[in-house]
């Protein structure tokens, strides 16, 4: 570098002046001996770039110095943030306690009950179990006997026991979300905002306080993610086998979890390296915007399949085998135990019913009206398989595209699974709400206005459907076509939101690829 420029850089005080001085120096160089003009021009341009980079770094350092002077000390910062999380947990616990007590009052004094009918089903099944009878003696009890077992104290302790358990699980989900985000070094404020998306989401706190058991499932799934992040493979496998027994839908996560357990990323009994959140990670929006390129769907699919075919051959690893076998064993153990105790009734009600469930009554699914119109004649095998095709198409693509970023992959899989399901009820939304906070720190989507648009569109689509559903069910109007069209619009809203989330997500694998890290170190 030119000594004159070097001297200037070393004596930088005012960044603005430095930039002007640098440009002047560059011009001076360019006006030099014409015989060396080209070489000097190239050198000058390189030196200008170096100077600009140096200036930018120095500006950044000055800004950080100013920020540090404004920031309180680390200890007081930790104290403040702990207090904030404690405050969040405490206030959300109070909200849930209030709702449980209010629900009790409403059930007693008003005709319309606050408590979900499912809670009454659980409680009745639990009281049957307490008196040594089968919980499946209760009509419409279609869950694992484990749930009835958990609620046995409803009979002898207090009828609200189950609601407290579900609300505690709800709070546990908030705590697990916070812990998972902290393990990935997400800044405190971002952690708290993300956790608020669960703790103060009206869907979630009403679900638990009305007596729905979904928070328990959500807590188990987050615990599985946490076990994987800590390298506790067998523990993760145990809980995965248990949660699939408890509620079948997590079976869709099997492939994505197995793909994540790459030999380069994950070793049993070793804590894997995690990709952390970082301020300097620029978003995917860059000068090379992908919107300028023409994506050939066929080429992309071919490349993906080729890439994945190679990887399939490398898929069989010790960790994957351990996870698969252990979780299968746990699932088979619990299923076998309850089959021994309750026979075919258990298998039919708790497992097979969910696999073959088609409900002609109106629900958010686009299939409800088709099922109703054909319920007297039934569906042929081909028709049943064709109706599963969208689900079967979407899930593998999502898995193979995003498996590395496990929380994001699980979130998308759950949204797609719910959207294409034959039956959709409001409680299913909790399945992906518990994963949403895990992806928020990695989205470039701003609340204003894209985020708000997504929220409003999704909520508006639901309200639109609910309006027609109300007219059908409570006013007796024949609005089947309108309701069915509202279901299609809801599917469109879900699809659009998924696409926007994918577009704005900063893909970051959960685990660090130790192979590529080692190669980089050698280089």
């Amino acid at each position, binding site marked *: 570098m030119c000594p004159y420029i070097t001297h200037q850089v070393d004596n930088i005080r005012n960044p603005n002046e430095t930039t002007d001085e640098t440009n002047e120096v560059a011009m001076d160089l360019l006006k030099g001996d014409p015989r060396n003009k080209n070489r000097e021009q190239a050198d000058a341009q390189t030196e200008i770039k170096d100077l600009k980079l140096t200036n930018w770094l120095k500006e950044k350092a000055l800004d950080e110095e100013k920020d540090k002077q404004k920031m309180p000390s680390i200890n007081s910062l930790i104290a403040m943030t702990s207090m904030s999380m404690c405050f969040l947990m405490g206030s959300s616990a109070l909200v849930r306690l209030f709702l449980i007590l209010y629900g009790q009052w409403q059930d007693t004094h008003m005709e319309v009950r606050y408590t979900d009918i499912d809670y*009454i089903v659980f409680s*009745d099944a639990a009281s049957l179990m307490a008196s040594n009878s089968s919980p499946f003696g209760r*009509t*419409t009890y279609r869950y694992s006997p484990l749930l009835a077992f958990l609620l046995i104290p409803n009979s002898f302790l207090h009828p609200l026991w189950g609601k407290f358990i579900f609300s505690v699980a709800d709070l546990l989900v908030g705590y697990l979300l916070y812990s998972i985000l902290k393990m990935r070094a997400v800044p405190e404020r971002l952690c708290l905002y993300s956790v608020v998306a669960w703790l103060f989401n009206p869907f979630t706190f009403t679900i638990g306080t009305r007596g729905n058991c979904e928070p328990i499932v959500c807590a188990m799934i987050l615990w599985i993610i946490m076990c994987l992040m800590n390298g506790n493979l067998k523990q993760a496998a145990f809980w995965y086998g248990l949660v699939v027994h408890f509620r079948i839908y997590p079976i869709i996560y099997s492939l994505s979890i197995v793909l994540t357990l790459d030999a380069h990323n994950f070793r049993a009994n070793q804590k894997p390296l995690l990709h952390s959140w970082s301020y300097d990670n620029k978003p*995917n*929006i*860059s*000068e090379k915007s*992908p*919107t300028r390129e023409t*994506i050939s*769907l066929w080429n*992309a*699919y071919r490349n993906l399949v080729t890439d994945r075919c190679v990887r399939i051959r490398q898929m069989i690893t010790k960790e994957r085998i351990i996870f698969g076998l252990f979780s299968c064993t746990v699932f088979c153990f619990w299923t076998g135990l309850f089959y021994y105790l309750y026979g075919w009734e258990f298998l039919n009600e708790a497992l097979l019913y969910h696999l073959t469930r088609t409900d002609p*009554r109106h629900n958010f699914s*686009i*299939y409800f*009206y*088709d099922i*109703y*119109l054909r*319920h*007297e004649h039934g569906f042929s095998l081909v028709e049943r398989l*064709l*109706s599963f*095709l*969208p689900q079967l*198409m*979407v899930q593998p*693509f*999502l898995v193979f*595209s995003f498996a590395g970023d496990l929380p994001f992959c699980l979130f998308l899989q759950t949204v*797609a699974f719910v959207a*294409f399901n034959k039956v959709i009820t409001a409680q299913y939304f909790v399945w992906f709400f518990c994963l949403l906070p895990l992806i928020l720190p990695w989205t470039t989507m701003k609340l204003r*206005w*894209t985020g708000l*648009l997504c929220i*409003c*569109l999704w909520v*508006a689509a639901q309200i*639109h459907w609910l309006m027609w559903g109300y*007219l*059908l069910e409570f*006013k*007796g*109007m*024949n*609005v*089947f*076509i*309108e309701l*069915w069209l509202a279901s*299609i619009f809801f*599917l*469109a809203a879900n*699809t659009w939101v*998924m*696409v926007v989330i*994918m577009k704005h997500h900063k*893909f970051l694998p959960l685990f660090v690829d130790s192979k590529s890290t080692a190669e980089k170190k050698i280089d």
Partner: protein
Amino acid sequence: MASHHRIHISCSSLRGFISFLISASLVICVAVPSYATEVNGTYATTYFHESSTSTLVCCLPSSEKLLIDYAMRKHGFPLDSVIYGSTIVPNIGSQEPCKQMELNLGSILSLRTLRRQLIGQGSHRQLASSIVFDIQANGPDQLRVHSCELVLIQRLQSGVFADPFELQHLVRRGVFVDVGVFGDTNLELPSAHSGQSVIEVHVSIDWDSILARQKRELEIAVELPLHARYPPIGEDSHATVEIVLSDSIICCKRGSIDDKECSWFGGAEATTSDVVQWRVPCGNEVHSVYVSTITALSASLSALVIVYASLYASKSK
């Protein structure tokens, strides 16, 4: 450039969303008033002649709570005959009087009118029944020393059902003394895959307050919550479910541990005017083909969009 592109997407998305809201509002304003709710046939009044009869049904032991349940177990009456029979009496009763029972209800009470009305709208309604008995001159003195219940037995077609758990909740709240639902109690299946059922409801009669009014009339109001199943698809916009005439039985006992003597009150066979009609919206078979097609296309299109977006995002990552 990327930020401009993002703003462009956000603006165009916002415009599209606002357009949707406006068009949805127009659809609602135009469409809703053109649909009419059903109003006819939701009430029926049955007048009984002065010569209406009462028939001794059976003596219900004090340990037994429900007539139908007792009749099926004790006398082996099949449930189908109770559900599908035109009248309840020969199907549940043994016509044996209770021992040491001095009350002859037939000479004290006579059924005058039975008014039934379907209250509410939509798929969840209440069947409000108002039963009026005439009390004979010699009635009050005898009735005061007995505790009696009105037993209402209502047969329901497959298109309508009562939720046993909801009725039990009403029992716990003290609305009914006891309740039983027999037959097909499935809450989820549509009408085409369901069977008929029969409800037995016990309502306490408070003679003191009734006789204190100094009217020789016993009026009892019962409200039964009922729910409509999805009817079979048809050509009309609504299917009609008929709720037939219910049976009224009075069961009385003297002491708390005594058996109850039950007498059925009725008259002529039920006529069409005694039927309450409930019109339930049903699917139209004309929609079948294009609903299937558009559903499949919508699902496929959404799936393709998600697949394309995931490939696009996967490539750009």
